């Protein structure tokens, strides 16, 4: 009996420790970013970092204006969401409500395969295939632009949005639908007016998690968006995102240099953006359960 109690205690301790460890990891990552960012901000003014319009890390004097990078990330993310959200939610509705059983299985496994395509492969597809197509369709100077990036990122966000939205739609109690049908609603009316509103918070969470994935994605945007640090006037021009900046400059920056520290500040900005998005997603998920 005593042995059993000890065993229980040990197991409970490990489970609890793992839980706390995750919190500790998040806190440590944040502190780590904050520490190096503070070193950066002690040498470079916060105002010129947040409001500066030029990113010239190896010039003399260096300029670390993050506006083009933040706008680049937001532009790409916004357009990726514009594509992925309607498509993803519609697919989820189809899988959960309308698809025949056999088609459902095929669709679900296709979505899983979509999720497992490595981003570098998508980037490669973007360079040799999608980029030239975009260039010819829209008659723009180069296919290496935000739009190509947005399309590929939408592709990457789809699996997250579809899977979680579908779960949310399916978890709406059957009685809701029965009540709607009982009142004479058609299948579409029941889905649109009853089931979707009931699943809304889950779907919003799905969208937010999908967007979180898009903001943090690096390889694809680095390969296909052209990486020009401009303030983008439209989505069809080359632009540079926060993630691509860190990835392509981190290897070069000498440890301890201002350039090196500046990348931590960029990382901090990115962390704050994804944190906000995940926080909203979490709020929505909780509202659904509560």
């Amino acid at each position, binding site marked *: 009996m005593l042995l059993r109690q000890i065993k229980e205690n040990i197991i409970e301790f490990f489970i609890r420790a793992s839980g706390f460890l995750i919190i500790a990891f998040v806190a440590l990552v944040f502190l780590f970013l904050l520490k190096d960012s503070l070193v950066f901000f002690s040498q470079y003014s916060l105002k010129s970092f947040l409001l500066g319009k030029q990113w010239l890390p190896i010039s003399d004097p260096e300029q670390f204006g993050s506006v083009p990078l933040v706008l680049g990330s937001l532009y790409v993310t916004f357009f990726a969401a514009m594509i992925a959200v309607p498509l993803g939610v519609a697919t989820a509705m189809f899988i959960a409500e309308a698809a025949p059983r056999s088609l459902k299985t095929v669709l679900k496994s296709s979505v899983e395969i979509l999720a497992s395509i490595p981003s570098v492969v998508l980037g490669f597809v973007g360079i040799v295939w999608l980029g*030239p197509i975009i260039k010819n369709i829209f008659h723009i*100077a180069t296919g*290496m632009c935000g739009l190509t990036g947005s399309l590929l990122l939408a592709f990457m966000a789809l699996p997250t949005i579809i899977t979680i939205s579908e779960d949310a739609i399916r978890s709406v109690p059957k009685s809701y639908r029965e009540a709607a049908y009982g009142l004479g609603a058609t299948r579409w009316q029941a889905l649109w007016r009853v089931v979707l509103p009931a699943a809304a918070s889950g779907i919003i969470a799905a969208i937010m998690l999908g967007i979180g994935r898009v903001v943090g994605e690096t390889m694809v945007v680095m*390969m296909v968006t052209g990486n020009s640090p401009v303030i983008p006037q439209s989505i069809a021009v080359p632009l540079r995102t926060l993630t691509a900046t860190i990835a*392509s400059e981190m290897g*070069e920056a*000498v*440890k*301890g240099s201002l350039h090196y520290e500046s990348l931590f500040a960029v990382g901090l900005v990115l962390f704050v953006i994804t944190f906000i998005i995940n926080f909203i997603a979490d709020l929505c998920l909780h509202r659904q359960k509560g």
Partner: protein
Amino acid sequence: MRYYIFSAVILFFCACSKEVIPPGVPSGFIQVKGSDTIVNAAQMLAEKFMADYPYVYVAVTGGGSGVGIAALLNKTCDIADSSRDIKPKEIEMAHKVGVDPKEHIVAFDGVALIVNKKNPLDKLTIRQLHDIYTGKIKNWQELGGSNLPIVAISREVSSGTHVYFKEEVVQLSDKKNKDEFDSKVLLFSSSQAIVEEVAQNASAIGYLGMGYLNDKTKALSLSKDGKDYCFPNIKNVLDKKYPLSRSLLMYTNGEATGINKLFIDFVFSSKGQEQFKEAGFVPLKSDVAQAN
């Protein structure tokens, strides 16, 4: 089944570690890192070197000259490839961490400007290039080409070629010149990506080391004064007639010793120099350069 795989893996590692190295034969591991321009040549060198010294393993990675020098300073590589001189700031950093970078000039290179094969232009002056990359010239028509917007492509800031091009073209080799790349210039993280984009985009222009020239794109002849236009080939680089000629470098921490010295010596041998020629660069000695 799982146990079989597991024991196979264990056996494999035992077999590896028990390989008998004859006494007095050089053995070890060399990490070569840096310039994306040199990476293909370095890989060829490494293969030939490993054929001569079977117990030395040479790993070659690219990423850019800055990446290599940063790695040398962080002591994560033995030899740093670079297509630009080490910056005074980097030397200062190096001394702070107790690294003493020693430079070896291993070959010459011309920075070639490439355009799409459909582009009717085949020569430019450095001044015109400057105007393209600082955003003053925006359409090929202004240079006598077809009516297409110019898409200027550059390497990322981690690239030695980027730094070289910035000094020589964007700032016209004038230290006081503070001109910058136009912010609309595209920044690509590899030379191969530049080749791909220029090969399929009639409005594009990009620069890269001579080693990346092939028949997918067209290289331009360049001139400093608008009189003598020179094509980036071995002869013009060796004679320093080509305006964007430069040295390719390797850095070691202090004088190279042991297997690192063996490798550096191999790079300077005629066999090593031939690899540079094969990769499309210009060997140091004109006899290797001219031999067929």
